[in-house]
């Protein structure tokens, strides 16, 4: 009996028009990368995400699509980082991926799903997730320093100015210094290890 080959899609949800309403972490709309990589709303969990993806598949690919790739599973989703991992049989991953690409909102909030990595094992997908999260934090810190240096200078803030509105650069910098992001990384690593255990069973 040949083993069923799977693909694991590591994806992240980007919010092109700022953080969604009801997201847990507020005040983190400081830098450009943070505005787009916002935490998702707490209503978005593995089950609701799966049903949203399923409806996108059925809208774009009909009954045939659901039949082919309705068997996907959301192996992991973290609303804090808006990152998740999907599992799908290898033959159908492109259909599922296209369905993800055609999603443009979650609960009325504009959202774009970007697939970061397609992998044959969940382990590699997890490694990539950790790497991406670390990279994101490094970038945010770098941008935060940039904001600090250019206190009150509009162009250093980048697109943050659009979202931050009246907030001044100095205020923004203090918000970033609270270091809540580091907690986020630990959170990913922990929950992913849990997930790994599940998978090994």
């Amino acid at each position, binding site marked *: 009996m040949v083993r069923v080959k799977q693909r694991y899609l590591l994806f992240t949800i*980007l919010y*092109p*028009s700022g953080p969604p309403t009801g997201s847990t972490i507020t005040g983190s709309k400081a830098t450009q990368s943070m505005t787009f990589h916002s935490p998702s709303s707490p209503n978005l969990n593995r089950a609701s995400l799966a049903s949203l993806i399923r409806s996108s598949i059925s809208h*774009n690919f009909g009954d045939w699509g659901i039949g082919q790739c309705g068997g996907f599973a959301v192996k992991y989703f973290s609303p804090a980082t808006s990152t998740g991992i999907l599992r799908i049989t290898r033959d159908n991953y492109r259909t599922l991926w296209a369905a993800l*690409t055609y999603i443009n909102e979650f609960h009325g909030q504009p959202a*774009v799903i970007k697939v970061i990595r397609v992998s044959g094992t969940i382990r590699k997908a997890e490694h990539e997730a950790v790497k991406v999260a670390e990279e994101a934090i490094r970038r945010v810190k770098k941008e935060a320093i940039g904001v600090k240096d250019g206190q009150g200078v509009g162009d250093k803030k980048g697109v943050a100015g659009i979202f931050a509105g009246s907030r001044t650069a100095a205020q923004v910098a203090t918000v970033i210094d609270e270091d809540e992001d580091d907690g986020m990384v630990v959170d990913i690593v922990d929950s992913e290890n849990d997930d790994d255990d599940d998978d090994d069973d």
Partner: protein
Amino acid sequence: MFYDLNIPWTSKDDPELARTVAFLEELGYNVVALNQTIAGKIPSNIAGIANSIPTKPFPNHASIRFLRRVTIVLDDPSQNYGLASLSNNFDIVAVRPTDEKLLLQACTSLECDLISIDMSVRHPYHFKYKVLGQAISRGIRFEITYSASVNESNARRNLLSNAAALIRATKGKGIVISSEARKAMLCRAPFDVINLATLWGLNQEKGKDAISNGPRSVMIQAKIKRQSFRGVINVVAGGGIPKPASKEVAKTTISQKALVKRKAEAGDNDGAAVETVKDSPQPAESAKLDGEATPGQSSENRPSKKQKKLEMRAAKRAAAAVAKGLSGSVGAE
């Protein structure tokens, strides 16, 4: 390097455009062309329209290179669009034919860099390779814009059928995919776009070409058309004190490279006719072109060197064999 050759330009202070550009940077695009669409007759103050896009429109996005692009909507086959005059003001000149006749005209005769067919509506004609192939052989590429299909179901259906037809007719060659996104939420990451292209019938490799190498060649070709003599010869080194000996060498290598690149056009001007083109906007850019010139040139030189080496080796071997044969025969005696 990923390219998005179609972002509609509104104004410098438009927050949605700023957000779109920031989002494109976030998604991993490196070059963005800001597009102005002109319908009907080309106005006389075209330079003014072109200059409404500043040279550095978004200084806080340093990692993105911005190009200026114009799209002319063709709707009258008898009208003479002065497309040649546009290329002085814009980095890319695109046309959007509205019917089959105009498509034929654009493919065969119009001086443009890109043909952008509206993919979100149904066309009453088929795409034929005979027509499209002429454009491809002239180095003109076809653009597929995907953003309308993200938003609207009907546009999605039309895009799927049109893109599949276009890709079938062009055999997957000369395709460029861009967004034409008026909102940030209509942009997609490069690899997501490549995956969409696999749905239309391009494979992964050609899909990637359609978003990286294809647009790059559009950009470079438009630049060469604009800056060089008949699109064949361009003097890339500018400034400094000329050294007579080295200049001679540079001339020959440039003409050699140009000859290889455009054999057809090179027929009427030999290596002697080197034209100096005097508009190099930035030294960095001309340096880049220079860098692009070197690989072609070195690959040209390489075979001759190799051949020489091979000949030398063969000669040595022959000499050794002769010597051996002699000694052998002596030994036998």
